[in-house]
């Protein structure tokens, strides 16, 4: 798929996320919408070695979602990629569902780790990268984190161990959307200068516009050929992206839309499923 097609796809994924959340009645829209471009590109743009028909193949790339509350967007792209039937998406957060409110390792094809209590996924990802190194495996480990998650001490413990073992087979991706539950990250617990901190902890840092797929792809490819050190990609994103009333409002971190809001959001996303003003998918 070309980037323009993938961008359209990303808005379909966003719409899917909105539908899942309204159906569930609870959940976290802001981060999921903000990072939809990244997730769509990652799974549908061929950036990783995966096979939905053989989801646990031992040579697969590992995608570790450390910020578990982003899971609606991960579930949506996994379903789109064919890991499980799309009909299952509406079971999010419901009883007897494989789509838990926060992901549980291997409960669903494609879910590598359990997360939701923040800071744990990065350590799991480091363990996977270490094991791959021991076994001389060539697969890569990609760990996705929130920026608020960087508050957790465990994250910085993990970074120290990444540097110690020079795990260039690990790429971390931080969604820098500047919000967390209680407000803006720089008010709640300042992270800046984040880039300098990550560099000081031994990462090659690439800052990208998280809504520019070309930039994201370039950064991910750069990480693959950087062997001297692990790479940290800081995705600058707009929380709630492409749903006007959600954008940049931290109140939408952990609140599902109501019926009226859902209609409005879907209309906005529908409008965006166009190329050069021409509706391509009605």
């Amino acid at each position: 798929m070309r980037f323009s097609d993938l961008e359209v796809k990303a808005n379909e994924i966003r719409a899917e996320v909105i539908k899942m959340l309204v159906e569930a009645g609870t959940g976290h829209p802001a981060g999921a919408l903000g990072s939809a471009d990244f997730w769509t590109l990652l799974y549908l743009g061929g950036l990783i070695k995966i096979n939905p028909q053989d989801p646990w193949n031992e040579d697969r790339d590992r995608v570790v979602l450390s910020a578990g509350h982003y899971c609606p967007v991960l579930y949506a792209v996994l379903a789109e990629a064919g890991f499980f039937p799309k009909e299952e998406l509406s079971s999010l957060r419901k009883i007897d569902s494989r789509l838990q409110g926060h992901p549980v390792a291997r409960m669903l094809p494609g879910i590598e780790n359990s997360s939701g209590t923040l800071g744990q996924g990065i350590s799991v990802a480091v363990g996977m990268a270490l094991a791959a190194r021991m076994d001389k495996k060539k697969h890569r480990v990609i760990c996705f984190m929130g920026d608020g998650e960087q508050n957790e001490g465990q994250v910085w413990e993990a970074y120290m161990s990444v540097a110690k073992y020079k795990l260039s087979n690990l790429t971390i991706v931080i969604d820098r959307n500047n919000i967390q539950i209680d407000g803006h990250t720089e008010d709640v617990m300042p992270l800046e200068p984040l880039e300098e901190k990550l560099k000081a902890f031994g990462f090659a840092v690439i800052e990208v516009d998280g809504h520019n797929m070309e930039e994201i792809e370039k950064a991910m490819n750069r990480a693959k050929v950087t062997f001297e050190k692990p790479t940290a990609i800081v995705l600058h994103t707009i929380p709630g992206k492409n749903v006007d009333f959600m954008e940049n409002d931290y109140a939408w971190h952990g609140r599902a839309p109501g019926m009226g809001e859902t209609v409005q959001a879907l209309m906005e996303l529908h409008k965006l499923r166009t190329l050069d003003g021409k509706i391509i998918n009605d």
Partner: protein
Amino acid sequence: MINHEMNLVEDWNNLEKRPMRDGYGEAMVEMARKNTKVVVLIADLLESLKLDEFKKEFPERLIEVGIQEQNMMGLAAGMALSGKIPFVNSFACFSPGRNWEQLRISVCLTKNNVKVIGGHAGFGNGTDGANQQSFEDMAITRVLPNMIVLAPADYEQIKKAVWRVMALDGPVYMRMTKPAREGMTTRTTPFEIGKAQVFREGKDISVFACGSMVYEAMLAAKELAGTVEVEVINVHTIKPLDTEAVVKSARKTGKVVTAEEHSIIGGLGSAVAEVLGENYPVPMRRVGMRDTFGESGEPEELMKKYGLTKNEIIKEIKILVNKNE
């Protein structure tokens, strides 16, 4: 009467004292030679856990994380998800003390194959004071679903336990106390996770003990022999508790004492009380730390001061026996 089926040592007057951790360190090396999946994670306490030999022989399979218990547990979870059999090592007060939440989510939630070894449990770090001692570790691990909790009694038993822990697919917590203590079991003493062992048969009262307190219970039984016939049961597996053995012995004697180098809340005493309460209620007393922290001192002095000796077991036995008369 000593239970001869257990193949315990013959000469109880000359028991060899050995630290559990020596058995652990030796077994880890032997095991790693046989199974390449075994890896060790350590948080800056290599020698304390007797893993220096392991490091010498398998440097590439030893992950030293420094003073990072939380990260260590997560790393182990990731390695287990990649097919390794990771052993996570530290003092019990730090692991599972400090990384309990990582144990809960990254390990137990999906029965991830991580083995947690808590060294210097109880009064092991005597002179270091309360903050390095651990009387809560069995309580906080026992409450986690999918978890198996072990407190073996001596050097030989630890050696056997390590192999069984490795062979089992799922999370295990095993605690070890520090001081060199009397070895009661031999190479031919049976060991099976989840199977309590009657070390001494008696008809008047049952003492369920684990770890260092098994020997104290044996001493108490010996001292009372002739007046009270004490049954001593080594409950090396706290979870899953051998319900059948507990109820069987309680049925036989009608009186129960538990003994552990751990809080009386949440550990062996609680586990036995839960089982008896539901299945066969009998009068019961618990020996252990009585909802209190420790302090600095030599382990032996502290054991005396806080009532973790044969004398306390005898006292509790007498309370129950006299009540009955």
